[in-house]
């Protein structure tokens, strides 16, 4: 049967995320496709957070505004979220605990606090009780939930797992006995062999696979789970993860490590990236490859630390004083996050430049079960002088002028010569110069020639329905999923989209072809300025008819986008 959206809301610390991830795992075992997003506050306790999962028998990539089932872990959640429940929807709540007397049709009263005490002896078991209730309501099957619990508590203290199973059972039985309607029923689907992950995990895996050996960062939401994930596996792969004293140290450390020959990466968000900008310019000047993830969040300044936005596009593509080549990827999916991270390392090394992976909180934190990754799709390509060749080399000049602008890069210590790298304008040897003619050659090397090369390797935009469409959406980064689903709702094929997984160098040729003759181009952006639309104008001379913008710190939901499109499509 059809799709279902479940929202779990409560205070920070109440376990909305615990319930949510357990339910994701359960529905995955059932073979359902899942898209789950998180909405949380910049606090550790209290307030109101939610975790929302959309379950379907085909892949889903976006969130919906309205939930079918709301699990309200506190009274405030009932009030806050009742307006965004579907017509058929229900609210699971503990009326006694919340002191609610009214008997509303929408309520499905579950005394989960009491049940938690009864089955586990503590309030913390309400999470598992709630999971049980959902298993019961949806017919996901108790055995699947039991498996999830057993996996989650494997290796934990004796008895904990058992108590959780009883709590789940209590919830399950309660639902079975008290909720007779089958409207939320979920049947087994094809998605069992999928991978459940978010984009930050995908990026971490991509970096590991790419041979990143040194990772340095300073904690900053929403980038931190990249560091967590790499740390978790660092021992296995001989990766050093070094928490820096600040973002300036992080970027300079990865530059130093990369100069010495190790593939290196950093991740941060807008404010931390602001501090790295001088280092970006250093990477450009010294021609030292680095990969930086900029996981955007609403700004300026501290802004909304835990929310989402795409307002750093202009900032990132123009980051760093002076002119030098760089590339900026903007993955739209978890899969792209993985593959483009791999590519980022290859590209950075090939052109000896900084390469950016621009994401945002929505992409970083949203979970989806994806088809198994193709681990051979993007191979590791190396562009340093191999150890073998190094031994034969002599007369090495770090910045020797070549037609491509790329000078062979030697690893210090491997060749018999020494390597001079320099942040001043420099000679081919890497020594400081004041020479005007050499300056011109070096600018052409670092900027014109490398950009010309990069333009040849631009990631192709993803297109959908372009031939038939009278209206074309244009987006980058995390809006991929919502654009796709929006287009799919137009059965007549009259809505298409173009998604850019790379925004710099800007895919001018591709877009000029793709958008040729299209009258109604609408940019879809999670920002206030419509930056992508303006960039399109600057680079390709193409004007968007308008932009659908969202800048309240929340991601696009399908309804929001569709409503705007319907207004604009006429």
């Amino acid at each position, binding site marked *: 049967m059809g799709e279902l959206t479940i929202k779990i809301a409560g205070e920070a610390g109440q376990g909305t995320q615990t319930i949510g991830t357990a339910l994701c795992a359960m529905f995955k075992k059932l073979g359902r496709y899942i898209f789950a997003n998180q909405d949380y506050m910049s606090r550790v306790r209290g307030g109101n957070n939610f975790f929302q999962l959309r379950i379907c028998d085909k892949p889903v990539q976006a969130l919906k505004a309205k939930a079918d089932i709301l699990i309200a872990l506190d009274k405030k959640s009932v009030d806050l979220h009742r307006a965004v429940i579907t017509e058929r929807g229900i609210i699971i709540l503990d009326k006694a605990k919340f002191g609610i007397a009214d008997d509303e049709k929408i309520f499905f009263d579950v005394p989960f606090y009491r049940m938690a005490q009864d089955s586990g002896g503590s309030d913390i078991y309400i999470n598992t009780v709630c999971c049980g209730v959902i298993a019961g309501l949806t017919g996901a099957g108790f055995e699947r939930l039991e498996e999830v619990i057993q996996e989650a508590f494997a290796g934990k203290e004796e008895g904990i797992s058992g108590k959780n199973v009883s709590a789940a059972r209590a919830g399950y039985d309660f639902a079975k006995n008290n909720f007779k309607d089958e409207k939320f029923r979920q049947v087994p689907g094809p998605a069992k062999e999928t991978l459940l992950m978010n984009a930050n995990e995908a990026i971490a895996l991509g970096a590991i696979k790419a041979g990143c050996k040194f990772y340095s960062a300073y904690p900053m939401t929403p980038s931190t789970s990249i560091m967590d994930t790499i740390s978790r596996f660092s021992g296995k792969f001989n990766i050093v993860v070094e928490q820096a004293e600040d973002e*300036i*140290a992080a970027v300079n450390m990865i530059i130093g490590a990369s100069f010495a020959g190790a593939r290196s990466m950093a991740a941060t968000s807008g404010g931390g990236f602001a501090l790295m900008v001088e280092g970006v310019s*250093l990477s450009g000047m010294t021609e030292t490859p680095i990969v930086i993830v900029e996981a955007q969040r609403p700004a300026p300044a501290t802004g909304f630390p835990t929310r989402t936005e795409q307002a750093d596009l202009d900032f990132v593509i123009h980051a760093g004083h002076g002119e030098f080549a760089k590339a900026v990827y903007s993955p739209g999916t978890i899969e792209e996050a993985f593959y483009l991270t791999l590519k980022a390392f290859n590209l950075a090394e090939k052109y000896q430049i900084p390469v950016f992976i621009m994401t945002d909180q929505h992409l970083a934190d949203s979970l989806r079960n994806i088809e198994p990754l193709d681990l051979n799709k993007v191979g590791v390509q190396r562009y340093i002088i191999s150890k073998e060749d190094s031994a034969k080399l002599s007369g090495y000049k770090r910045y020797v002028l070549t037609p491509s602008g790329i000078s062979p890069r030697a690893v210090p210590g491997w060749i018999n010569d020494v390597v001079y790298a320099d942040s001043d304008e420099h000679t081919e040897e890497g020594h400081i110069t004041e020479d005007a003619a050499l300056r011109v050659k070096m600018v052409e090397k670092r900027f014109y020639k490398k950009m010309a090369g990069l333009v040849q390797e631009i990631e192709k935009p993803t297109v959908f329905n372009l031939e038939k469409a009278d209206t074309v959406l244009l987006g980058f980064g995390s809006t991929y999923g919502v654009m796709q689903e929006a287009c799919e709702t137009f059965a007549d094929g009259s809505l298409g989209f173009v998604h850019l997984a790379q925004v710099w160098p800007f895919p001018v040729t591709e877009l000029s072809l793709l958008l040729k003759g299209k009258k109604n181009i609408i940019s879809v952006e999670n920002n206030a300025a419509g930056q992508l639309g303006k960039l399109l104008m600057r680079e390709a001379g193409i004007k968007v008819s308008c932009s659908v913008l969202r800048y309240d710190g929340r991601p696009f939901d399908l309804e929001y986008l569709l409503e705007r499109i319907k207004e604009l499509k006429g």
Partner: protein
Amino acid sequence: MNINDFKSNDEITWCPGCGDFGILNSLKKALVTLGKEPKDILLVSGIGQAAKLPHYIKCNCFNGLHGRALPAAAGAKIANRSLTVIITTGDGDCYGEGGNHLIHNIRRNLDITVIVHNNQIYGLTKGQASPTTDLGYKTKVQTNGVILEPMHALEMAITLGCGFVSRGYSKDSDHLAWLIGEGIKHKGFSLIEVLQPCVTYNKKNTYEWYSQRVYKIDSNSYNPGDKAAAFQKAGEWGDKIPTGVIYRQDGESYEDRSGLNNIPPLVEEKIENIDLSACLKELS
């Protein structure tokens, strides 16, 4: 190895008589004694007169941003622990713009050696006060004289757990060469602050001024392992300025604690065929 093996062809742009020449010579001597080849040594610097030094010697060189020599050096050392990593930096570069990296790299305790060319002035930018400029010294910016307490970097380094804290004098060539050699040998973060006359912009702390004041710490009577004594010694400034090893304490380095010492240098890792399957299983 001999001195000529470390000769660079780059033209030196320091002012004639600058104290930096002395440091360059002492460093070369120390490297000759060390016996490593230029290709196995990496000099890292920021920006300033001091920071130009790596161009004037034949070793690997990463001449990065003002104030950011230390993190670049740290990254390079982590990537390839077989390199001997030496940082040449100024009082502005290291203590001013780069102060935070100094603090935290002392804590990090990688096996690297930092030579601070302390001319008590910003030389390259033409004579503003640095964190070590004496109180009252007048410049174009500090028109009424410096009013900030000079930074006591050596004392600070001791409090932060630096295991090799020392001072040299650029004119005292052999002593400084020895000091640099000791710093390199110390397994951990070594700080060598060098009194370096700037003949153009520091009209107070001149060769004469320093020469009248510096003395060598008597290695027979002084125990550099005594922290309390070291604080005392590091704090001496004025009529008498001690040079030599002020504090020395062996300890575990970052390479020891991180496990880097148990594996080949990271840069030697093969990365072409990394197998993710175990991670994927664990994650999903």
